[in-house]
């Protein structure tokens, strides 16, 4: 299946979607750009700590609501640019959780339970301040009625916990992840840190996987302990080289500091941002064309060193 077809089929306007990756790493950018290219709107987006993918979807006008723990791209954007502008101008409804709370919410969806308990956040405003008002929650059956629920430990002081917070499960319509290797049926092998990609995928009704390398089934069966997601969880597998660019893909390429700095400059100004969207996304037919606009010498520079898995010595200023 092509990425155009996968996004067209599984990402409807107003869908609840989640994207994998973490800050500057393994964001499913090819799919993010395709969603923008197809002008999807009103998306309800879930992420834990996501930088570039979340910010581009917001900047691309696709996102109405966001549930997230952290919107930043490390030193390139300690707070994501378009995210910040959208929140401050009141264009984006946000519900805040902590990273572990978001992780557990995806894990609850993956496990098929309505909630999981956590000992994080009691006494903070994350519990008391709701981004989605109670009326919105009650009116929308896609949202749990409550943001978080405190529960007195029914096992007394077992586990030395008098109280826990319960975090509600997330079950997106579709989760999109970008991985190093997948087979044609959809079995996934992630190298390096998996972040919460696997829980996000299992929690979703539909899963789109983009990958650097697409292989036959036999190639992944010698060491099943290195695979994380079986084919029956996956609805579309797309071969998308540099599919995480400008974020990193461990053992393949680094994040691109030049692009990320340039993006910050573009995103800070409405006209520059509009020009960027037109030239790089709307006027390109696909990710290969987007990549063809990059400086090939820079693409060479960010290739991963086989020993370290990143571009050792890369100029990252």
């Amino acid at each position, binding site marked *: 299946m092509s990425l155009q077809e996968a996004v067209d089929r599984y990402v409807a306007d107003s869908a609840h979607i989640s994207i994998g990756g973490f800050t500057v*790493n393994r964001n499913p950018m090819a799919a993010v750009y395709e969603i923008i290219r197809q002008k999807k709107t009103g998306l309800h987006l879930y992420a834990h*700590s996501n930088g570039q993918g979340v910010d581009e979807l917001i900047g691309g006008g696709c996102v109405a609501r966001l549930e997230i723990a952290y919107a930043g791209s490390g030193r390139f954007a300690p707070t994501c640019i378009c995210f910040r502008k959208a929140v401050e101008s009141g264009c984006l409804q946000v519900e*805040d959780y902590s*990273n572990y709370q978001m992780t557990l919410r995806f894990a609850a969806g993956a496990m098929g339970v309505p909630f999981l308990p956590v000992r994080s956040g*009691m006494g903070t405003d994350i519990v008391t301040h709701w981004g989605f008002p109670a009326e919105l929650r009650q009116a929308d059956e896609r949202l749990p009625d409550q943001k978080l629920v405190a529960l007195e430990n029914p096992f007394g002081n077992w586990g030395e916990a008098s109280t826990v917070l319960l975090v509600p499960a997330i079950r997106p319509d579709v989760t999109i992840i970008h991985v190093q290797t997948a087979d044609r049926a959809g079995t996934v092998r992630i190298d390096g840190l998996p972040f919460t990609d696997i829980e996000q995928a299992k929690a979703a009704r539909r899963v789109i996987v983009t990958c650097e390398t697409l292989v036959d089934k036999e190639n992944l069966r010698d060491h099943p302990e290195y695979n994380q997601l079986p084919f029956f969880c996956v609805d579309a597998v797309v071969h998308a080289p540099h599919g995480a660019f400008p974020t990193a893909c461990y053992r393949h390429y*680094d994040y691109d500091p030049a692009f990320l700095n340039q993006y910050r400059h573009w995103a800070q100004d409405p006209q520059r941002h509009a020009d960027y969207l037109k030239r790089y996304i709307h006027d390109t037919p696909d990710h290969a064309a987007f990549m063809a606009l990059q400086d090939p010498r820079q693409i060479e520079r960010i290739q991963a060193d086989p020993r370290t898995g*990143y571009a050792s010595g890369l100029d990252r200023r």
Partner: protein
Amino acid sequence: MTYSAREMMAVAAAREIKDGDIVFCGTGISMLAAMAAKHISAPNSVIFFETGAIDAQLEEVPMAVGDPRVMLGAAVHGSLADAFGFMQNRFTGEHVVGILGAAQIDPFGNLNSTVIGDYTSPRVRFSGSGGACDVGSFVGRTILFMQQEERKFVPRLDYLTCPGYLDGPRGRERAGLPPGGPEVVITNMATFRFDESSRRMYLAGCYPGVTREQVLERMGFAVETGRALPVAPPTPHELDILRNKCDPQRLIL
């Protein structure tokens, strides 16, 4: 030997790390502090990221906790669930020291990294909690980095993102949080600790050339200053490690 305030901060934090500590690192200067401690006084400390990299062998300074540089030579690449599980689990969590920063801090060491102004229509929006709320909730002790500015040391936070001692003595216990709490606040001018009984911040140390009054001027609330001692400047060895081993590209410093 001259040095910058950021260098002093990193060195002051590195000195807080004990050999054998499991050090939760965020982005920026906290990574430098952890790297420096490992080279100087805590060779058996373990550098650990919420992204799941355990005992990372940092050769280059990561620009984010999701930077592939955190993956090099680690003992285990776990998931986020694994990483936070180690902190919530008391057997391991008590050995973790967390290094955090924020936009605002209050007298009990609670942090705001979410909004300035009203939550529903903020004047300034920041990144949000990330793992900070979890780390502040779970781990044995935390080291907090702050800039010494009046608007950052506030009597009341605009939004409480990460728990310190909440409303004071036994505040964490009443809320149902595990034991723990901030141990030290490190700014560009001074260090603060928290009184054992009141759980309020007090001035613990001033950097060379900084007076108590200068510090107090740059705070939105009063603190006790009677226990403040001079902080020793970075030694040449500390500076050498920091500059040449930890951040030769000057990405953070």
